[in-house]
């Protein structure tokens, strides 16, 4: 019961944050949703029927699979969170804010040759891959 409540509260809070504007809030929302998913995985292994941690002792050994799932999920969420924060940083550099839904503040010029929707020239990068 506790696990179900925890998953529910985390998922609700996470969903609310994901629907907000701003990459940082979206990232926090996904962190919470990731925690909800991890708790759901652990609960699926049966929090009420925990066994002993090793094979060979007395009693049934605990189920290793949900723990493996949860660890993998935590690591993956960690990686994606790092990427989302990098996106937020990049948004701060290019747009000026991390709110990607904000309308473009600079007026678009109609001169030919300006970057239109489908220009495909890659941005100039130096050898390290950074855009000057």
């Amino acid at each position, binding site marked *: 019961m506790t696990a179900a409540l925890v998953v529910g509260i985390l998922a609700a809070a996470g969903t609310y944050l994901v629907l907000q504007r701003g990459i940082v809030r979206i990232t926090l929302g*996904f962190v919470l949703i990731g925690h909800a998913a991890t708790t759901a*995985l652990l*609960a699926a292994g049966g929090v009420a029927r925990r066994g002993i941690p090793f094979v060979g002792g007395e009693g049934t050994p605990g189920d290793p699979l949900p723990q493996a799932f949860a660890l993998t999920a935590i690591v993956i969420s960690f990686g*994606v969170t790092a990427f989302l924060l990098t*996106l937020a940083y990049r948004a701060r550099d*290019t747009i000026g804010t991390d709110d990607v839904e904000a309308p473009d503040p600079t007026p678009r010029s109609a001169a030919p040759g300006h970057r239109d929707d489908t220009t*495909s020239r*890659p941005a100039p990068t130096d050898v390290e891959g950074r855009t000057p």
Partner: protein
Amino acid sequence: MSALLVAPLALPLTAAGIMLLLWRRPAAQRIVSLAGVVALVAVGIGLVVATAGGAAEATRVGDWPGGLAIPFVADGTSALLITAAAAVSLLCLVVAAARGEDRHPLFHPLVAVLLAGVLGSFVTGDLFNLFVTFEVMLIASYVLMAIRGGRREVRAGTIYVTVNLLASALLLIGIGLLYGAAGTVELAALHRVVVEVPNARIGASMVAVAVAVKASLVPLHSWLPRVYPVAGPAVTALFSALLTKAGVYVLYRLSSTVFADVTIFREVLLVAAVVTMVVGVLGAVGRGDVRGILSFHMVSQVGYLVLPIGIGTVAGFTAGLIYLLQYLAVKGALFLSAAAIETFAGTGRLARLGGMLRTRPAVAIGFLLPALSLAGIPPTSGFVGKFLLIDAAFDQQLLLAGGVAVAVSFATLLSMLKIWNGVFWGERTDEVAREPGLAGFRPAIPAGGAGDDDPPRPERFVSARTVALVTPPLLVGGLVLLLGVLAGPLIDLVQPAAETLVDPQPYLDAVREA
């Protein structure tokens, strides 16, 4: 055999590691990348030979006591898809190298990781390993999408990451619930689980919805046309050939194992397929740039790819597999010719293009042949696939689905004609004549030669890079005609794989005996 089964996942990851060590040597990275993908094509062909005639091969990785292991299984479907995906990726890498898109030191390692995720998802026999391979594939695609770092890339990247993270969270919770109900996550052990274990329905449905987001099935499709045109052109081609097809493959695999004998699954996917076909092709009407139109068509074609699940017979799956295999190549080729158009003219907007047939006829033919295959015009392989699909639909009395499939084919043809008229026919525009996109290709004008005010030179600039840019779509065009003519042997090759999808007994036996 176990090495061959694990290679689709292990080989690209190893190559990615090697290429990271070659950080400052782009030429060496290119060589390792291309060699790796050629090796993957060889692995795919080896698997096709091993699984010919409806056999399946499996191995258990890990093999801990108590039966804890991750099965890696290849049947006909997986083997054919691995070969096709690796071959199309090779073409995309050639174009990326020709365009210079791969100058970023992380480009080739990321593409290798992407391939590892996609091909790994084709051979994995375990739902949680599927989640892991999906995440590997997605993380590489997030970075490839946003690698140019501009304003539009950040916006599109945020949408892409958000939608896919939600899908991944749904997948994870679904797997958790399914494990709680069924006690296992092995696909072979989950055969008919929805029928036999009522509690498994919720988890399995969440897994199916999450995979449908990945496959971009209506109503979970709107992220794709918003996001795909923003990436670099060669990257979009790579995505189009790999990402959604992984989702479609998993839907096939789920319908074969987890949702076996579940009629409601088949009916829901039938409705979704029909609606997807229509929505995709109507959405293409509103776009005015080549890659935007093609992205909407991707959504529409996913409807064709999911239709066999709705039909449910061996004939339906044979048609679906034929269509899927040739569609991998066709979609890649269409996006690669869009890349060529954008490289030469510097833009993809139809309003700014016109008359390219006279200046670059190779690009025109490279676009025309895959476009005809997409619309299903004989004698292309697209016609073979669509004809068999509609025939299978009518055989099962699914008249509405078959009729919609035919109508959407006409609409697809109209859309392809719109691109053809906009880009290749009509008045030659400034962009097509001057070819501003080739600025980086031409050698620098020597001092004293600049300041020339003459109109654009009539002879077209040709170099090794432009040839490499233009040839891949032509190769696919030739392949499409060849497969259209050799339809008989193609059907003979694919039918045993389709039979294994409908009756997965060889798949289950292979996993049990591994």
